[in-house]
């Protein structure tokens, strides 16, 4: 048992918990109302949005799994860096339009937008369900990150996870989105301190970067499944498509969109797309911790343990406790935002759309609070009930699923040419093909080798599925428009997408 580390860990965890409850009083609003609880009244400025959206992307999973992948498989794990490089310019173009139309019509979720734009309850439901299903294992995965640091301190079993999650559930329930937003600031400061100290201290102890990469190459070459410190030609198309597919998927996740919708202005959204790349640099350094673990001679079968063990070996115990607290809090923040986003989706697009049509904002708020508890409980059951390996592959499948909402959400933002029924069938085709490809690998890998024109091209299955999705959508749109099937009413106008461009 690492007592010093544990005491420091608990101290910081308590500090953050108090902040979480205190957040209810911050920028006061009526927390029984869904827009206040679930979007904090759309009043977050540039800085808070930066921390909040950063908190979404920059999770314990990143801190544990990306370096874990580098530790186990070598260069391929570094795809997380180009992924975060390309994501912001792409969404710089797209998200301001989303913010504008959401603000104009009071949309809380992406499915609200689909309903308004395409007048199709079934398509809106499909998008909402995809969001909820893709989010659940993602929340569960935050827990595996927390489990990894707890295990490193010598705490096994499920009860500490249950305690942490009860605390998380209570302050999310009382404070809504204000809690993760406030905690995200503290969490990021802690993570930045950890990263800066790690990048200075560890290379000095391990004899410089040259030595780290050299030792990592030797260790990877002698592994059971040999790896390399640079991508091999066979990995090129996987590396590129994993980065591109993950980037396209990122802001389609309900929790990322929640961060965007809670911004106070269109300008805040644009500024953030220009400021968020600051995180990518830290991500690159964190990824290299995987190689540092190899160079430090850390031997573990569970790659999730690589970074925690590295910290315990190279740092005094109290600093490891601090770093572990940063990682655990880094799991709590996104888990809270994700459960809020899933609750918003359920409340708006299932409860209000199908059960209580004229629900008041208070009723919506109450339902969302309860659903956020249920979602977290579901994640907890998931993590305790299923082996971890299973959860990780589920998360990768989450990317395949969520990417199939792209044609409706992104194309729909620019044009109404695509037919609502075609989008639904395309979505179904993409999901079905994506799951089929995943099943052919025995539910182990999310990259799939397609044989095309005599060439074998391995790539992220999400991209293949998206291509099928788009082809089906285009062909069906041509057919349905030719036979004049009703397109439904569009309740948005062209100017709605430009709201606040003049301010």
């Amino acid at each position, binding site marked *: 048992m690492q007592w010093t580390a544990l005491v420091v860990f608990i101290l910081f965890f308590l500090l953050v918990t108090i902040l979480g409850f205190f957040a209810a009083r911050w920028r006061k609003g009526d927390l029984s109302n869904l827009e206040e609880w679930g979007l904090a009244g759309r009043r977050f400025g540039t800085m808070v949005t930066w921390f909040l959206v950063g908190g979404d992307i920059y999770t314990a999973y990143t801190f544990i799994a990306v370096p874990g992948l580098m530790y186990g498989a070598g260069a391929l794990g570094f795809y997380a860096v180009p992924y975060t*490089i390309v994501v*912001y*310019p792409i969404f*710089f173009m797209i998200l301001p339009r989303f913010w504008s139309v959401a603000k104009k019509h009071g949309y809380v979720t992406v499915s609200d937008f689909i309903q308004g734009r395409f007048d199709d309850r079934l398509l809106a439901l499909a998008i909402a369900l995809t969001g909820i299903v893709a989010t659940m294992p993602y929340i569960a995965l935050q827990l595996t990150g927390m489990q990894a640091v707890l295990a490193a301190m010598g705490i096994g079993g499920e009860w500490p996870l249950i305690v942490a999650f009860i605390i998380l559930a209570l302050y999310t329930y009382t404070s809504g989105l204000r809690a993760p937003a406030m905690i995200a600031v503290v969490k990021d400061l802690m993570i930045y301190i950890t990263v800066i100290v790690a990048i200075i201290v560890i290379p000095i102890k391990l004899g410089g970067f040259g030595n780290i990469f050299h030792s990592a190459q030797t260790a990877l070459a002698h592994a059971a499944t040999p790896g390399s410190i*640079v991508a091999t030609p066979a990995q090129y198309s996987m590396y590129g498509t994993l980065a591109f597919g993950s980037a396209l998927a990122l802001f389609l996740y309900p929790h990322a969109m929640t961060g965007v919708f809670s911004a106070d202005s269109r300008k805040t959204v644009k500024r953030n797309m*220009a400021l968020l*790349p600051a995180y990518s640099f830290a991500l690159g350094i964190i990824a290299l911790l995987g190689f540092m673990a190899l160079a430090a001679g850390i031997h573990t079968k569970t790659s999730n343990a690589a970074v925690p063990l590295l910290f315990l070996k190279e740092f005094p115990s109290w600093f490891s406790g601090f770093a572990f607290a940063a990682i655990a809090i880094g799991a709590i923040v996104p888990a809270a935002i994700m459960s809020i986003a899933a609750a918003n989706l359920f409340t708006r697009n299932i409860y209000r759309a199908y059960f209580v049509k004229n629900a008041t904002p208070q009723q919506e708020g109450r339902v969302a609070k309860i659903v956020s508890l249920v979602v977290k409980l579901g994640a907890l059951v998931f993590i305790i009930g299923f082996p971890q390996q299973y959860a990780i592959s589920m998360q990768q499948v989450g990317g395949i699923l969520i990417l199939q909402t792209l044609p409706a959400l992104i194309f729909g933002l620019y044009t109404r040419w695509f037919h609502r029924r075609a989008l639904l069938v395309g979505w179904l085709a993409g999901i079905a093909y994506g799951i089929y490809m995943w099943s052919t690998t025995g539910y182990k890998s999310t990259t799939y080798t397609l044989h095309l024109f005599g060439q074998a091209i391995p790539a992220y299955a999400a991209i293949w599925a998206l291509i099928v999705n788009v082809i089906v959508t285009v062909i069906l749109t041509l057919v349905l428009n030719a036979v004049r099937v009703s397109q439904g009413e569009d309740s948005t106008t062209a100017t709605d997408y430009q709201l606040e*461009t*003049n*301010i």
Partner: protein
Amino acid sequence: MDNTTPRKKGSPWWYLLILVPLIGTLFPAFYSSVSPELWGIPFFYWYQMLWVIVSAAVSAAMYLLLREN
């Protein structure tokens, strides 16, 4: 709503700038090598880290060039 007369806005062609980081980073065939090293860091890594800065600069440039007021 007072958005009847959009004021002067940068040319939408500037949006094509998003292609720059995509081309620069999504094709590892062009940069997957150990040498030239920088402070012992293989090219593969410092090249991509450099793109973090380039991409941030591109985003900032787009923000300024496409300012909507």
